[in-house]
């Protein structure tokens, strides 16, 4: 496993909003085929880390490598130069701020903590739209249906995908009419439709009961195999995290306080103090 190629590598990423340092000097990596979890209390900066990796926010400082290329880079400049509270201010020189769609085209796809399905569209169309980025048509050829073969192929693929994730029966329903757990599943399916190399899941089990969580754990394991993706997930359900993660990063107040395999994290004093203790209290 250690010899595997890195699909994602985050270097000294700091994200500062005004005076709030949401992510502070985060470095992490994901190797091909790995499932990596990010855990930590609410407000620790987990979602912000995702937003930096996927291009929603340009980091204040730091660099992100994806699939061997530097895709994101920034250093404190302009107004931020004076107010920067983090470290390594002089390490990076370039400014590289791609938009999320560019990174999705390179092979990243994500889901959201607060489900973001397209509410006026059916289950089927929600996934079909995710095929738009691989189109070979322009407005004219698409309007006059010169892309018919491609469209039919896309529709077939969407149907297959729906079968795999078990939503085939519901394909003509409005996405938002689905029960919560199925909406989460659909969001994952939509991300998979872009053929990602790296899948980022933000609290995929949030709001699920233990049985649904159990099913989701299996589902994520199955995805890794069937779709040949690496996965980063943010999660609070410790059973799920300990069950399927190869490695875990623990964030607290924007800082990495621990990393390692599940057994190491479970035994880590700092993690128990900052997070696991709290979770156990909350769940009992």
């Amino acid at each position, binding site marked *: 496993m250690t010899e595997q190629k890195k699909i994602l590598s985050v270097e000294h990423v700091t994200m500062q909003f005004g005076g709030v340092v949401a992510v502070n000097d985060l470095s992490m990596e994901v190797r091909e085929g790995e499932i990596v979890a990010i855990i930590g209390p609410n407000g620790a900066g987990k979602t912000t880390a995702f937003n930096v990796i*996927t291009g929603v926010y340009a980091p204040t400082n730091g660099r992100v490598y994806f699939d061997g290329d530097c895709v994101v880079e920034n250093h404190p400049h302009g107004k931020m130069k004076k107010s920067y509270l983090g470290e390594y201010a002089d390490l990076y020189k370039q400014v590289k701020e791609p938009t999320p*769609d560019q990174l999705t085209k390179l092979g990243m*796809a994500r889901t959201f903590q607060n489900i973001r399905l397209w*509410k006026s*569209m059916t289950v089927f169309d929600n996934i079909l*739209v995710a095929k*738009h980025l691989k189109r070979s*048509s322009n407005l004219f050829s698409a309007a006059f249906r010169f892309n018919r073969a491609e*469209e039919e192929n896309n529709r077939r693929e969407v149907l297959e995908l729906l079968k795999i994730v078990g939503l085939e029966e519901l394909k003509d329903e409005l996405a938002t009419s689905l*029960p919560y757990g199925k909406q989460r599943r659909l969001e994952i399916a939509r991300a998979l439709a872009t053929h990602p190399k790296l899948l980022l899941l933000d609290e995929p089990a949030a709001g699920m009961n233990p049985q649904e969580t159990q099913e989701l754990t299996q589902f994520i394991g199955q995805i890794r195999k069937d779709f040949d993706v690496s996965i980063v997930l943010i999660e609070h359900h410790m059973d799920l995290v300990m069950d399927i993660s190869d490695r875990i990063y623990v964030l607290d107040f924007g800082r990495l306080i621990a990393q390692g395999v599940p057994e190491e994290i479970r035994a880590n004093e700092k993690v128990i103090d900052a997070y696991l203790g709290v979770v156990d209290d909350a769940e009992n």
Partner: protein
Amino acid sequence: MIQTRSKKNAWLAFLAVLAFLTLIFVLDQVIKPTDRLGMLLIVLQKGAVYALAAVSMNLLNGYTGLFSLGHAGFMLLGAYTYAIFTIPDKSRDAVYQYYDAAVRFSIPEQLSRHMGGFGTALGILIALILAGAVAALLAWLIGLPVLRLKSDYLAIATLGFAEIIRALFQWSKLGPITNGSNLLKNFARASKFKLEIAGAKLSLSTFVPVLIATVSIALIVLIVNSTYGRAFKAIRDDEIAAEAMGINLAKHKMIAFVTSSFFAGVAGATLAMVLSIAQANNFKSAMTYEILLMVVLGGIGSITGSVIGSFLFVAASEWWLRGLDSGKFLGIEAPNIFRNGFRLVVFSVIIMIVVLFFRQGIMGEKELPDLFRKKKKTPVKEAES
């Protein structure tokens, strides 16, 4: 299975459109503009123009979720482009009486010299496309800065743009091109459109504007139902999710804006064609609001709704409620109440009622075919177990 059904639907739609156009052609022959029913022709002409304007606005405001209020400006650009390039040589100096006309080129006239009647028709078509292209070009230019703005700011910026265009076109320094604040006339207009077959003169005054609107709306329907149309809807429903799924927001918003403006330009040109005049002062922001009302009336996000809304709006304001201004309405004679301006009062009340109590509009987000399709309902609960 899926494919054969959609093919059948496409054929049905095509036949329905063909039947509609045939009906319009027949009406054009049997009804004379001076008849009692002559009003119907005017409603059909104007209704078609406004239907196109409303549908093109819906493409942007309803489907892509970009609230723009520049429609009258783009229609003005289309109307003037069309008028300027179809004024015949011999009328030009009479039209531009205070200026030395800069554009001395009538596309239909030039082409008819080589190709006769067909050349005239082709020239008019080219002038229409040029009208759309000029509006689209301006949309592209202002789109770069303006489309970054969020909702209200976009509305204000586009509204401002339309007002600037209107002022600019009345500016005397541009008189040699725009004829300043004077109107443009004598260009290729609907009332003159005729087809001569074996000595018989067939009127095309209503048919041509309706045909232009029909073909344009069909093109918009094709776009909306393509992969691009779905991407527009994704942007409207959730822009962040759309971007995360690989949709380039800047590019797609620009495509929607430019396409919508192109058809607004064509609608403006067709309006000039129907009214026989083009004057900047007619393209006030009130026109944009009227079109917006038609869209809301029909249902934001429904093309069928926009078309129905437009025809109802035009018919009500031009025809059915006419009596409210002229002393006699529904057989009641009350010259003291039913006089100038009362129509507008009643009209505004009706619209307020619709907007307050029927927020979904006539169609909601449904389209015509949805009304014939029985919805197969899979109960979510059952499927779950």
